[in-house]
């Protein structure tokens, strides 16, 4: 009955997203904001696999993001390997990092897991800063410029990047859907609801959470490569930072509703333009004011609805469809 409507909404959204850039300046500021919003929505979606479906509140996704950015860029700078290949290498490294991190931390709950993952992100930031002769250290690293080409993942205008990020968001969302509607999704939701009961009816809880963590980490690393190619320059703070990446990404999924397909879309559509606007209008006036606004926004959102964060996890009509649909 609602089948036509269900596929209609995404189709219309996608059509709008495809056509919109044609009406915007290909090198302008608005399209750049939209491109970043798409990238961050995709990151929120990747986080959602671990943070939403498995309810493991990671505050260390910057660790994976930075691995992706640094791996592809260092490969490009030092060996001339295409960023697309570097993206795969970064995703593989992040998957390995996720396995190593998961072995000691997956059994931790709530605050402890958040603390451990936070420490992981910070470790990566410190290493990237300290390993100067390899990573370029705190001064950061630039992506060498090469002519406009999809093969080199480099474009002069923002518009092609917009389409790449849109494709990335669609792909990550499809990955989220595949996990959510597949066996793994059922297992993760069962674990989230009651881990002991899930174990007793045959779910290997460690393996399921590990799988979610590896998928999420490698997608996040691939997006890190996208970020490096889009921004041309980054330093340890911008890709491994706690506030700029780890918290922002988690927040995007949480504000929009964790564990839901549309949550990261809503979160990114709301947060990224809001940040950009405060940066644009206030940032030049006083340093720190946009970050302050961001912190206050976070506080206000939670004070208005402290239970809202979990209320969002209680299935409503839209969510149930996602879960039940074959």
């Amino acid at each position: 009955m609602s089948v036509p409507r269900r596929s209609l909404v995404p189709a219309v959204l996608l059509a709008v997203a495809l056509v919109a850039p044609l009406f915007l300046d290909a090198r302008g500021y608005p399209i750049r904001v939209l491109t970043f919003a798409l990238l961050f929505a995709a990151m929120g979606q990747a986080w959602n696999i671990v943070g939403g479906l498995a309810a493991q509140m990671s505050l260390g996704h910057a660790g994976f993001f930075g691995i992706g950015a640094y791996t592809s860029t260092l490969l490009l700078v030092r060996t001339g390997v295409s960023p697309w290949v570097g993206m795969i290498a970064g995703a593989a490294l992040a998957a390995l990092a996720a396995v190593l991190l998961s072995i000691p931390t997956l059994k931790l709950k709530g605050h402890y897991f958040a603390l451990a993952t936070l420490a992981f992100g910070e470790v990566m930031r410190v290493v990237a800063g300290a390993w100067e002769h390899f990573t370029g250290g705190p001064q950061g690293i630039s992506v060498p410029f090469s002519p406009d080409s999809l093969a080199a993942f480099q474009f002069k205008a923002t518009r092609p990047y917009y389409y790449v990020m849109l494709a990335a968001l669609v792909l990550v969302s499809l990955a989220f859907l595949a996990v959510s509607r597949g066996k793994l999704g059922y297992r993760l939701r069962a674990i989230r609801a009651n881990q002991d009961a899930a174990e007793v009816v045959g779910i290997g809880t460690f393996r399921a959470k590990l799988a979610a963590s590896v998928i999420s980490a490698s997608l996040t690393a691939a997006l890190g490569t996208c970020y490096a190619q889009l921004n041309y320059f980054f330093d340890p703070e911008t890709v491994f930072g706690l506030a700029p990446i780890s918290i922002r990404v988690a927040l995007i999924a949480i504000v929009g509703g964790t564990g839901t397909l549309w949550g990261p879309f809503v979160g990114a559509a709301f947060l990224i333009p809001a940040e950009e606007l405060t940066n644009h209008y206030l940032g030049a006036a006083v340093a720190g004011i946009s970050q302050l606004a961001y912190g206050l926004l976070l506080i206000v959102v939670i004070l208005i609805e402290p239970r809202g964060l979990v209320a969002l996890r209680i299935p409503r009509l839209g969510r149930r469809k996602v879960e039940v649909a074959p």
Partner: protein
Amino acid sequence: MALLQALVDGLLIGGVYAVISLGLTLVFGVMGIVNFAHAQFVMIGMYVAWFAWATLGLDPLLASPLAFAAAFVLAAAIERLMIRRVMRAPPVAQVFLTVGLLIALENVALIVFGSDFRSVRTTYQTAALRLGPLFLSVPYLAAFALSAASAAALWLFLQRTWYGRAMRATAQDRMAAALFGIDPERMYQLAFALGAGLTAFGGAVILPYITVSPSVGGQFVVLMFTVVVLGGLGDVGGALVGGLVAGVIQSVSTVFFPIQLQNLVLFVVFVAVLAFRPQGLLRGVA
């Protein structure tokens, strides 16, 4: 020899880490809240002491009670306006509220004080006592002594006063405490304010050897959690030991690794402790 010197330095620095982290563990022990913003009270304490020095000419060590008082009042207000409202909310809400606070406080400082690094000049800044082959830095020693004094004061407060006992009772069993006429909400507020005050006090006493900037709190976030987790989250005695251990690890690791990696060693210890002994190193041993 370098190792022994690093050990001594580590213990002296670690004493301050202990006091800074006492506040965090007190808040968790009594309220069950992990306050990610807590490190900002180090920064607040440092600024209070810096302004006391710049305007009144007061030595940071003497200004440390002022830092305590300022953070105490500010934290009491924060508890009343924000923390209290998420006490029963799920951890995710608590984490993000305090993370929001972490970001907001840092940037308020950035807007108000600017991004300059500020330091004080004292007569004893570069002084050192000679003890055989070892040097004892005077500012380290002074900070350590004041930290030890404040830890002792906290201990007396918790053991000997009605408020201290009431706070411990609330930490153990909120319902039972309420039956004895203790208002748990008041105790939470007191614990939060006291914890912030102690941490700000620690910030003030390190000002003679660490410069202050709006982002200085960030250097302490993971350090404080490491100390607290080493000692067992919520364990006040454990935080003292954890602080000393963390100071020694950090200091001794610089003997073997480049200085940029001193925090890395600490992080690795942190993750390892979280993973293998989340109840703390001491729990179940003593």
